[in-house]
């Protein structure tokens, strides 16, 4: 199918692979800026307290210490929605909240200095979950957020930002329903996306108002935008992103680190490096949002949803950076996966005294879906409807539409994903393995096998703006100026393939600049699976524009109009006359470069889709759950890079994905407020030694995106899995479950309920 292309769809080496496998790639930990100091953070032992006194005199006196900062001497920079997050605050709101900062000539000196700081606290009551935070008379985390409920919506998505769903008439919808079910489910294990490289920044302040930031980031320009706003728009910000050792969205939560390193650099007049340890990363950085949904759903016998009403409570921890945006996107994504004419979904974003939740791939939709599907399952079970048929029927189809995050209606013009879903079901053997609701697929003594399915799709594949430049050099080389950081997906290599395809250059003659806001143009960055369509479109247009300029220049030289010319391998010639023509050098001369600019404008009329089928085996005597098989099914329009796509889909397990249904959770002690499992033994993280059978089914139905008809699907690979696993475990046990993850304790308790119920039946 991809024979028409030279590179698109063909396996090509990833550009940074040799560096990564030989250990020569430069990550944040390798970064050295001359004169750089090392920073450490003193963190609160209390989940909620006022800092009444800090004595830093001894720390300041320690040899090698260049700056010590407390809340009393930091600039009034603020971030968040609303702007609750400061460089340092006089109130601490979770165990691990920064209290003081030290920059010193070495990490050891900085650490020693932390031990010399004396802090007095006045303790406040703390709230650790939604119920406590929303209780009458609960302690308030912020004076401007009564009841610990944050202001809904985000200005970034405009004045009509979705804060819930009010569509149609739910009462009329319920009147039409043949079954109505009410229920509650929660996805509140607060898993950590846990990129292998922990967050970090080097800040270099230059008086009076300029800062250069080297970041572990997936999107240098988006960071710059967030930082610029945090600095009250009064600082000239330059961000530089190198290789990023994973992000999964979470590195955007580095904003406080960035403010702190900048404040320290300004105070010390030296560059300052602030990197988190793995323990800090686990106990004091970004987690997935906590969600609880109470909903009522109306369903017809033919599988049509008639109404959904309810409340989605979102626990954001001690502050929100983007949680309201996640609520908006989640509400949009719910409509993409669940066509329903009548909605009344209300939402609340709630603050609690624990580390913050925020950006993680799946961005709201994964969390909402993980709660809605177990509730819907009960309605499906009442009507004995197959969940695959139900999800297949109700996924958005051409001609449908949805209110997206900005509150505006969009008509969907993308693919019908039914064939991809069918291909996935076929590959999985769904028809054979599905035995009905709450029925195991196989029973072997205490071992019970069950299957489940989930679906997810995102419209943000076309969100926001991307720009790119492509520069042609007379030597027959091209350079892509893009703010695409390599955060593990291989997307920069894919952009180079697109540019090489447009320019018909050997792949190795196209190179990429590092993301640097002083050099590379604006780009929202590779988020929400937008790399392929949005960023790809900008790169393609830039390459096309450069090519157009080249051919115009060549027209005089070759005595033919530009439209009768083509270029290949650094030569320009008349169509079909590859043996004639002239090299770029002859056309451009040695003293010229050509620069093409490309820009992508937001497009919310396409959506991707991922359907995930899972099979699990539950041991009813130990409570252990084993993920046996996973089949992911999607349609990518056109595969750009087969191996890269395969890896993206295999990534569905980790980064707070499928494993959040099995064992990934952040465990917060209810008595002390501490994160108890801030290490990689107790934070259960799948290793490569223990993988299920994986199969990825990818169709290629050309979609009207850009010239290669492709869309991105990487981000959503984590999203359908958790609900599918919960469904599979419920079916294996014969007991509906509504909480994640399925720990041995929960499985054994559920099995006991099932046995007790059976015994009750028998005696009746």
């Amino acid at each position, binding site marked *: 199918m991809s024979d028409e292309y030279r590179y698109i769809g063909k396996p090509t080496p990833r550009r940074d692979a040799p560096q990564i496998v030989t250990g020569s790639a430069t990550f944040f930990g390798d970064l050295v800026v001359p004169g750089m100091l090392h920073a450490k953070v003193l963190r609160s032992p209390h989940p909620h307290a006022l800092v009444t006194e800090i004595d830093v005199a001894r720390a300041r006196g320690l040899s090698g210490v260049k700056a010590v900062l407390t809340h009393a001497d930091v600039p009034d920079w603020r971030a968040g929605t609303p702007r609750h997050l400061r460089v340092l605050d006089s109130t601490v709101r979770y165990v*691990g909240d920064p209290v003081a900062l030290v920059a010193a000539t070495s990490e050891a000196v900085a650490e020693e200095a932390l031990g010399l700081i004396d802090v007095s606290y006045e303790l406040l009551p703390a709230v650790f979950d939604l119920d406590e935070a929303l209780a009458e008379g609960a302690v308030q985390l912020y004076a401007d957020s009564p009841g610990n409920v944050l202001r809904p919506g985000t200005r970034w998505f405009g004045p009509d930002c979705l804060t819930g769903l009010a569509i149609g008439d739910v009462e009329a919808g319920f009147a039409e329903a043949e079954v109505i079910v009410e229920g509650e489910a929660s996805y509140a294990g607060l898993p950590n996306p846990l990129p292998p490289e922990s967050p970090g920044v080097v800040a270099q302040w230059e008086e009076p108002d300029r800062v250069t930031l080297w970041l572990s980031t997936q999107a240098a320009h988006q960071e710059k935008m967030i930082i610029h706003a945090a600095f009250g728009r009064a600082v000239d910000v330059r961000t530089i992103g190198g290789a990023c050792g994973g992000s999964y969205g979470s590195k955007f939560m580095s904003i406080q680190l960035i403010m702190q390193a900048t404040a320290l650099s300004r105070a010390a007049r030296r560059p300052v490096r602030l990197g988190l340890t793995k*323990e800090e990363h686990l*106990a*004091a950085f970004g987690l997935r949002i906590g969600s609880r949904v109470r909903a009522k759903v109306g369903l017809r016998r033919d599988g049509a949803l008639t109404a959904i009403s309810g409340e989605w409570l979102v626990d954001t921890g001690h502050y929100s950076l983007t949680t309201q945006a996640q609520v908006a996107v989640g509400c949009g994504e719910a409509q993409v996966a669940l066509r329903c004419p009548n909605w009344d979904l209300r939402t609340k974003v709630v603050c609690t005294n624990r580390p913050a939740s925020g950006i993680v791939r799946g961005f709201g939709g994964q969390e909402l879906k993980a709660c809605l599907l177990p509730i819907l399952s009960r309605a499906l079970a009442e009507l004995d409807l197959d969940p695959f048929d139900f999800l297949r029927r109700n996924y958005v189809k051409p001609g449908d539409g949805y209110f997206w995050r900005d509150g505006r209606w969009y008509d969907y013009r993308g693919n019908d994903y039914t064939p991809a879903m069918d291909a996935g079901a076929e590959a999985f053997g769904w028809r054979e393995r599905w035995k009905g609701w709450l029925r195991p697929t196989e029973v072997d003594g205490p071992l019970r096998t069950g299957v489940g399915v989930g679906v997810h799709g995102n419209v943000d594949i076309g969100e926001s703006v991307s720009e790119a430049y492509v520069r042609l050099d007379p030597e027959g080389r091209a350079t892509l100026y893009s703010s695409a950081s390599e955060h593990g997906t291989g997307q920069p290599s894919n952009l180079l393939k697109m540019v090489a395809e447009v320019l018909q250059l050997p792949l190795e003659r196209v190179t990429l600049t590092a993301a640097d806001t002083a050099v590379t143009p604006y780009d929202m960055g590779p988020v929400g699976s937008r790399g392929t369509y949005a960023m790809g479109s900008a790169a393609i247009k830039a390459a096309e524009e450069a090519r157009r300029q080249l051919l115009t220049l060549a027209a005089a030289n070759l005595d033919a109009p530009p439209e009768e010319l083509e270029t290949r391998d650094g030569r320009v010639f008349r169509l079909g006359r590859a043996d004639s023509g002239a090299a770029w050098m002859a056309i451009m001369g040695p003293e010229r470069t050509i620069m093409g600019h490309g820009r992508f404008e937001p497009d919310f009329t396409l959506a991707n889709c991922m359907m995930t089928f899972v099979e699990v085996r539950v041991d009813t*005597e*130990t409570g252990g759950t084993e993920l046996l098989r996973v089949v992911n099914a999607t349609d990518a329009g056109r595969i750009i890079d087969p191996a890269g796509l395969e890896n993206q889909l295999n990534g569905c397990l980790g980064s707070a994905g499928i494993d959040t249904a099995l064992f990934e959770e952040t465990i917060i002690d209810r008595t*002390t407020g501490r994160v108890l499992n801030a290490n990689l033994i*107790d934070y259960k993280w799948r290793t490569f*030694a223990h993988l299920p059978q994986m199969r990825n089914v990818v169709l290629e139905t050309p979609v009207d995106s850009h010239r290669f008809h492709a869309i991105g699907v990487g981000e959503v690979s984590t999203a359908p899995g958790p609900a599918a696993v919960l469904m599979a475990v419920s079916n294996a046990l014969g007991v509906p479950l509504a909480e994640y993850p399925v720990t041995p304790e929960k499985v*054994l308790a559920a099995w006991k309920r099932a046995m007790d119920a059976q015994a009750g039946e028998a005696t009746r």
Partner: protein
Amino acid sequence: MRSFTHVTAGSLAEACALLSEAGGKGRANAGGTDLLGVLKDGIHAQGPELIVDLKAVSGLAEVSREGDEVRIGALATLASLDRSTLLRETLPLLVQAAHAVGTPQVRTMGTVGGNLCQEVRCWYYRYPRHVGGPVGCLRKGDGPCLAVKGDNRYHGVFGGRGCFAVCPSDLAVALTALGAVVDIAGPDGSRREVAVEDLYEPTTLTLAPGELLAEVRVPVPARPTRQTFLKFTVREPVDFAVVSVAASLDRDGPGCRDARIVLGGVSPRPHRALQAEEVLRGGDVDDQTAARAGEAAVAGAKPMRHNAYKIGIARTLVERAVRACLDA
């Protein structure tokens, strides 16, 4: 990490002398797979002032048979146990238990002595100092055990006294089932022997400053016994046991002359399930006996708020281990 003096000992005697001199302020380092984590997390109020490296001490890494005993040097790595033909033939339980530990990398560095003497995994005890300061607790002599009122899903259901952290060593469980003893070297050249399970006291090890494990001695059963080690973890592999069991049955046709059943992950020390052994000893053993042994093994368990699920797992593991011994 706080600074300390690092000395490489040339002999066991030198190491004991150095550590004795340091009083409680010295720590021995063999493979370092546990100690480095403890140091980096700064879990103790005072860090060690002296680290004595044992890696250069020779003659303590052998696994050999002498008469009716297998002798395992304290510096033998877990990997060497895992691939020992001698152990595979005489004490397969140890091979299974060694293989159940960590990763190949951990087993390559980690030693028998270190595995037996590693610090508990209690997450209050282990809380990293640099994220809000260390947590004081009974085991550290600083306050009550926080697990009692807190999240005790991984804590003990048997025999806790004040501290409810469980013995984290897989090897200790297997060695207890085999009736092994450890040979402890003292600073004055003295030697003393204790049963492996007696190495563990409710809040500490029995070792005095300056005492080090020299070797482990395991009696080779007079008749071949059926041996099974099972370990239940939340993550598989690379995890500590939620519950483990080591079973050794001396079969006599359908009967059982003697049995040793030891549970791990449930108590501050390897937990001899004496009542389960009683069920198995003497009579014929079949699947029903195995089930009764499972029941008997958990008799008297005292769960806390979040760890009652361990009882069901322990019961299951004992039953399965006994059945595996029947099938073997």
